[in-house]
């Protein structure tokens, strides 16, 4: 099986098949994430959530998708037409591209990823920050004060939290010595009788806490969902969007949510390693747990005020992340010295 990866033509066949499969899998996963979120939020509010379409409401998203796909493709007058259409495409393209470098598992020598590049994490962050462009351009092109405000908030928020997010992961890279996601997952330690991969959260707990908070902000999820803040901004940058263009933004948001959950599983919880559980299933389980955490946070906390958001980002998370980097570096040097 491993021979096919080295064959020049076989390699491309594998990549194309993998891309097709991954697109399908991520799309389906997104649909069921929305279903999972609605059901979990429902249970938090002691109601069943969608349960009418198909068994346990599992076909709800198919119904919603068909309904939205058949809506009129409407562009309001006085919008910047080209940008208005391009913006959601940027969002969805950036969201899906990130999955090119996310390794899902290694099972019976079959590689469940598309490419394994040595700057994997960096690429994921580069692509996830493209999401800002989608939101800002969409908000500006809508020619609507609520959309513009949503876009501006998003720009400020994402810039503030991206720094903390990146710095929160620096200790991990310092310990592992690589940005390749596979190397981070395969990071092994020898601790007395134990020799094997460990969940890196044991070594970088503070980094994990910063990562989780910053990732919620990065994906514009409650309680950091200021860009779309329904109550104050109608729908923020989404106000003027409907039909398939709305679906694209929506899709991008949920794909990003799965991406940051997957990254959390890979960077802090040992990826596809979990006792005897088969690799891909173990990874899936961890991602689902993280998704539940996000939904749980959304069901619990009210939205932060704008100044609180900025204070948390710049005055708490960023200094904490920097201190974390310095302390980890000191310990690393001391232990090697």
């Amino acid at each position, binding site marked *: 099986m491993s021979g096919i990866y080295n064959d020049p033509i076989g390699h491309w066949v594998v990549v194309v098949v993998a891309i097709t499969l991954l697109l399908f899998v991520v799309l389906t996963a997104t649909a069921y994430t929305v279903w999972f979120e609605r059901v*979990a939020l429902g*249970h*938090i509010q*002691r109601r*069943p959530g969608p349960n009418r379409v198909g068994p346990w409401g599992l076909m709800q998203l198919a119904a919603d998708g068909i309904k939205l796909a058949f809506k009129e493709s409407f562009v309001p007058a006085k919008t910047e037409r080209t940008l208005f259409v391009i913006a959601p495409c940027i969002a969805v393209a950036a969201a899906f591209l990130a999955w090119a470098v996310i390794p899902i598992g290694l099972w019976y020598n079959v590689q469940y990823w598309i490419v394994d590049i040595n700057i994997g994490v960096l690429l994921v962050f580069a692509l996830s920050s493209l999401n800002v462009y989608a939101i800002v351009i969409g908000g500006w092109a809508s020619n609507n004060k609520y959309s513009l405000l949503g876009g501006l908030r998003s720009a400020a928020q994402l810039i503030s939290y991206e720094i903390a997010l990146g710095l929160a992961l620096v200790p991990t890279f310092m310990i592992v010595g690589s940005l390749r996601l596979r190397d981070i997952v395969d990071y092994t330690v020898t601790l007395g009788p134990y020799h094997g991969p460990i969940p890196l959260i044991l070594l970088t707990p503070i980094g994990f806490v910063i990562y989780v908070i910053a990732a919620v902000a990065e994906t514009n999820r409650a309680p950091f969902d200021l860009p779309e803040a329904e109550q104050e901004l109608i729908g923020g940058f989404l106000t003027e969007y409907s039909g398939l263009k709305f679906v694209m933004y929506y899709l991008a948001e949920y794909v990003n949510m799965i991406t940051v959950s997957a990254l959390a599983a890979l960077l802090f919880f040992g990826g596809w390693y979990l006792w005897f559980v088969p690799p891909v299933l173990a990874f899936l389980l961890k991602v689902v747990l993280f998704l539940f955490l996000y939904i749980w946070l959304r069901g619990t906390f009210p939205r932060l005020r704008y100044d609180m958001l900025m204070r948390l980002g710049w005055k708490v998370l960023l200094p904490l992340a920097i201190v974390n980097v310095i302390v980890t570096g000191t310990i690393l040097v001391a232990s090697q010295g």
Partner: protein
Amino acid sequence: MADDEKTTDARPEHPTPLRGPDEGVPVHPKGKVPSVGADIAALATGLKTTLGEFFSPQVTLEYPEDKSPRSERYRGRHYLRRYENGLERCIGCELCAAACPVGCILVIAAENTDENRVSPGERYAKTYEINMLRCIFCGYCEDACPVQAIVLGPEYELSDTSREKFIYTKEKLLEPLPPDVQARLQSKAKEAT
């Protein structure tokens, strides 16, 4: 009236003295020092609460399948009753139509004869129609009836596809009573005796 208001204007004293213009808003309750630990504990309490709700039984009643129980005295659609020997109770006295505040009941009475005996009294209702679009389900007809011929049952899902179908005719009103209405009427009769 205005004078009365003036005399009753004396409000009770506020239990705690109100804040003066130069006093700031107290940030934390007295005796509580703001701390990161307390804040995180507060967040954890919130998460614990929602997780508790997550595992609690749901309160949703899934309507078309499950319905909330109706009160015994619930006033839904009308029924016309019969005696046990099959004769109609209604004697065509039109008291229900007179009692109806919206005038949705139409009764046209006719004489009973020995060949055509519909009710035990002198007269019976030849036509008995209720316009359910007008009816406000007040139950005055049931109160007014001297022979307890008309009762209001528990059904409330009365939607239909045309206006004409909302004129409930005598045939429709004479449908057999649901068992719980019968039980209610029996218990009412027992109380009366």
